[in-house]
């Protein structure tokens, strides 16, 4: 029996007990493969969907297709798998922050199906967030199956995300950087190595199944100093586009929640609007990889006005799809918007300085993509590496870095938290490893409680109490009712010092008269963050822990500091 079950507890195998790096690498390879498969599956089904729906493109009612897709996907999420609303990546980061990366099993497939329905029918959204969630959930559930601990599970969640991104873009470094920069938030070798392995596994599985192709073809650009300076302007433009997109998404979300209709109706309304836009500007439909390809090639060939309009339309379509309840991510729309903005910018330059030698529009499309990704995710490294890898060209790296850095900074100025982290930051749920909030959230009141207090009752004479003080090594004495055992108040030695040296008072005063009844108390379920804040505000050094009128113990700053230090040492040094 034991031999049979021991394979489910690889953490117990002697070789992995002290150092689990090997174990994690092994698991990372498995997770990377599975999440790679998930993203290939989504990619394939998207292609199939769009091929099948292509036959209907010429009918007049084609604009309802996105509506049907969005409604179906919303129904699927709400009624079939019962997942909550939201696009999911914050959920992953939240769970990594607070619960050691525990994710539901249903998350590993639900978003794949729902986003396939949304995007395949023409909704403007990306398939990357869904595959990241699936990959992360796969990693989490594999870790759960093998009873791994929280730290290992978090790493595997990162591995799942890395494998998914690597596989969908055929870009191992971007996947790795994304997982560490956005999902895990901790640059440590214990994380980096397994995540790198998962990226390799994810990329390899997609190359095996779909062939090793660079998604967007590679061009040689001749970049001189002028073009490098010009990219500063593009950075400003793409920052503006990111901020516009963020604000649009938020306002659409608010507006849609004011409509009192079932969620699927709302999604259908949003989808319908996207369909109408799509009638006139088909570039806004779908995840738009094809559009990006054409833009990089420089074959889009439209006039400036149409390009600018298309940029706005795509932003609007994305906000309509996602804000009204469609399912999908922000990644691919960012690429499309970025490349549209880039090409628009190129046309602008050509309009104002027709004599200067501008590199062709593909270059600006690339930079625009990097700008949008950096601006929306506020993850500059992910943007840089992704663009380099999906186009396979290193010569654009210098302007790429400039655009990413400037856009990130500008966006940060207007939107302090990225699209993924905004909700988490607002509710104080972003707890990156090694931060104060994280340490305080890990510690809890029952761990810090000190129980070696001498409890006295309210009818005790001061004389008897002095005998107790002599035996005690604490300054605090909780007072309980001698009949009910209820907590009444507390006596601090400082409060009663004047009476201590006056023997006349010894038999005249009972504790009920001198105790402090106006005490702030702590409940064991209280967050330590709140407890610490309370202590700071009232200038307290210790507080009694009381449940149901019963005194459990004391919590003091000294113990908090002691435990905090230990916790911080264990969490950070490595």
């Amino acid at each position, binding site marked *: 029996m034991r031999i049979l079950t021991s394979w489910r*507890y690889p*953490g*117990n195998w002697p070789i992995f*007990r*002290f150092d*689990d790096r090997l174990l994690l690498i092994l698991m990372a390879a498995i997770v990377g493969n599975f999440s790679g498969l998930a993203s290939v599956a989504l990619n394939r089904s998207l292609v199939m969907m769009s091929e099948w729906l292509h036959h209907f493109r010429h009918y007049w009612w084609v604009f309802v297709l996105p509506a049907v897709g969005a409604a179906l996907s919303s129904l699927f999420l709400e009624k079939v798998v019962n997942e909550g609303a939201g696009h999911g990546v914050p959920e992953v980061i939240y769970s990594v922050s607070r619960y*050691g990366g525990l994710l539901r099993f249903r998350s590993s497939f639900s978003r794949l199906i729902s986003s396939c329905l949304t995007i395949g029918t023409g909704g403007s959204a990306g398939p990357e967030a869904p595959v990241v969630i699936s990959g992360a959930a796969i990693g989490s559930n594999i870790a759960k199956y093998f*009873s*791994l*601990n*929280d*730290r*290992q599970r978090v790493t595997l969640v990162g591995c799942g995300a890395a494998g998914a991104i690597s596989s969908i873009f055929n870009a191992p470094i971007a996947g790795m950087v994304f997982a560490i920069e956005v999902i895990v938030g901790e640059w440590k070798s214990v994380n980096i190595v397994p995540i790198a392995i998962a990226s390799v596994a994810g990329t390899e599985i997609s190359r095996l199944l779909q062939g090793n192709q660079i998604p967007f073809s590679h061009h040689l650009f001749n970049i001189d100093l002028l073009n490098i300076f010009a990219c500063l302007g593009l950075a400003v433009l793409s920052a503006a586009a990111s901020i516009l997109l963020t604000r649009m998404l938020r306002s659409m979300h608010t507006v849609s929640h004011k409509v009192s209709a079932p969620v699927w109706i709302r999604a259908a309304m949003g989808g319908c609007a996207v369909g109408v836009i799509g009638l006139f500007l088909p570039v806004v439909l779908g995840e738009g990889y094809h559009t990006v390809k054409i833009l990089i090639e420089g074959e889009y060939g439209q006039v400036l006005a149409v390009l600018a309009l298309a940029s706005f339309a795509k932003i609007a379509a994305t906000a309509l799809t996602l804000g009204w309840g469609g399912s999908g991510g922000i990644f691919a729309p960012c690429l499309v918007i970025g490349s549209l903005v880039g090409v628009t910018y190129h046309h602008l330059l050509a309009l104002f300085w027709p004599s200067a030698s501008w590199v062709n529009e593909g270059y600006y499309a690339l930079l625009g993509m990097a700008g949008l990704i950096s601006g929306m995710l506020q993850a500059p490294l992910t943007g840089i590496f992704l663009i380099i890898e999906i186009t396979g060209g290193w010569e654009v790296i210098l302007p790429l870095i400039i655009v990413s850095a400037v856009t990130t900074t500008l966006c940060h100025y207007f939107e302090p938290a990225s699209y993924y982290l905004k909700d988490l930051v607002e509710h104080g749920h972003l707890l990156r490893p090694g931060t104060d909030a994280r340490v305080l959230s*890990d*510690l*809890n009141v*029952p*761990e*810090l409680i000190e129980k070696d207090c001498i409890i006295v009752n309210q009818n005790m004479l001061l004389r008897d109490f002095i*005998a107790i003080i*002599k035996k005690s090594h604490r300054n605090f004495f909780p007072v309980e009712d001698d009949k009910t055992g209820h907590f009444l108040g507390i006596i601090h030695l400082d409060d009663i010092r004047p009476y201590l040296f006056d023997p006349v008072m010894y038999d005249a005063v009972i504790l009920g008269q001198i105790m402090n009844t106006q005490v702030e108390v702590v409940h064991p379920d209280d967050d330590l963050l709140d407890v610490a804040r309370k202590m700071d505000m009232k200038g307290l050094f210790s507080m009694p822990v009381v449940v149901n009128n019963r005194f459990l113990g004391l919590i003091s700053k000294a113990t908090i500091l002691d*435990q905090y230090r*230990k916790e911080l*040492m*264990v*969490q950070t*040094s490595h």
Partner: protein
Amino acid sequence: MKLTINEVAQCLRLPVSTVERWIRQGRIPIQKTGNRYLFNESTLEKWAAMYKLPFSLPEKVNATPQQIKMENLLPSMKRGGLLYDIKGDGVETVLKNAVENIHYLSSSIKEILYSSLLEREHLTSTGIGKGVAIPHPHDPLKDMIKNSLISTCFLEKPIDFKAVDGKPVFVMFILLSPSTKIHLHLLSRLSFCIRENAFVEFLKTTPDSTAFFSNIVDFENRLVKGEGY
């Protein structure tokens, strides 16, 4: 020896709930299977050293330094003995004569003791009022004596001790102890006796040793009952 999870927590001076959480979070090299914990002591020690956490095996219950039961007044007083008719007309001579007469001590210690007693007197007088003085060295005589002792010295005639209340001193308790803790313990018991006027009156009669010790036993019994404390 196999440690339990509670003992590990004790080794690390942490609450058990913290250790359990660390196991769950994977911060400590202990594996949990069902309800069993798997770990290796030396690995744990290495791990603790790596993170600079305290790790020491809990002491055996018996090995914990038992609190030395502190002696009460009676044995110390018996050791110090009662000295009658100490001559002298100043603090120095009285102390000199008294120290000379303590049989319990060797002559080399007597010299040191005398000088340290004087030193302490120069600081402030040990005359605590009501005609009683408790001369003692400033620092305990750590290595020189094993046991505490109290010599009760009745003076031939009361002398001016610069006492707090200005009354001439007629009796001295020379108090020697190996540690400050014992010193304070004895001092507090002694002052409990002296606080009572009847005892001082009794001392004025220059009682013999039997009567004196039985009186001290009475006091100690009252102290045990917790009276006054």
